[in-house]
């Protein structure tokens, strides 16, 4: 009995670990530990509401905290290195804007996309805000870009 439970728990742990290993670097930002942080806005939308945007997952973080902003940038750059398509702009050696297609959509799997913006580096009315948006959806990169042009 005990042996069976241990085997089941070991299998579950292995599956969880493998799944976590397959994830993105930015996943550590989305594990919920910013939920209670001041200076952070986190948005999570899935299911029907995300469907209204043509997405299956919308998850974003916006922060006015410089350290958190730098952490976000470093993780985005790491994940962006493996992107299949990217559209980025650096200013003063720092990432200002980035749009990354991390995974193109297929019939079986939704595409994965990232938007990053550091408004501190904006020329017109800079703001102390770093924003990260993670999206999953069936649309291709052009359809995703249209979302921000509406």
């Amino acid at each position, binding site marked *: 009995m005990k042996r069976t439970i241990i085997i089941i728990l070991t299998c579950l742990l292995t599956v969880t670990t493998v799944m976590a290993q397959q994830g993105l670097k930015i996943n550590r930002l989305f594990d919920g530990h910013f939920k209670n942080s001041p200076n952070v806005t986190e948005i*999570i939308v*899935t299911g029907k*509401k995300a469907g209204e945007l043509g997405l299956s997952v919308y998850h974003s973080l916006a922060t006015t905290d410089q350290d958190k902003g730098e952490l976000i940038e470093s993780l985005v750059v790491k994940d962006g290195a493996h992107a299949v398509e990217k*559209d980025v702009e650096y200013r003063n050696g720092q990432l200002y804007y980035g749009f990354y297609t991390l995974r193109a959509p297929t019939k079986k799997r939704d595409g994965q996309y990232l938007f990053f*913006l550091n408004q501190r580096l904006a020329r017109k009315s800079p703001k102390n805000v770093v924003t990260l948006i993670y999206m999953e959806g069936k649309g291709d990169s052009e359809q995703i870009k249209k979302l921000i042009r509406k």
Partner: protein
Amino acid sequence: MNTNHHISDKAELEKLIGRYFDGETTVQEEHQLRQCLADCRWNSELIDEARFAMGFFAIDAQERSRGRNRRSHHITGIAASIALLIGVGAFALWHQHVRDNMCVAYVDGSVVNDDDEVMALIRQDLNTMGEASQGMSEQLMSLGAALELDNE
């Protein structure tokens, strides 16, 4: 034979054993015999044979009982494992359902559950991103135009 009758001597015991081996004893007599064989100190070939036979049956019964217990533990284990799997599965489905239908925002540590408010925050994020993207496109266009001018 009376249930309360006590076997008083060895001869009586051997007589009862003889009847036992001939299959003539009642359940009560067998019970009495078993008790006497366990308690008394008389010895003879017949008594030892009876002890062996009845002891063997007792051990066999014990083994069968242990086997039944082992089987019962085994079945309990399987049932518990199945229950655990069903529990884990149900939790995973529930968790998936919750994950699949979220619409929530956390603003400076405060929870926003109102769908419209959350969607408004999203729109705000997307607009900000759109403005930055547009600025980039304009820059690229002016760069392209400058390059064209250079070529002319």
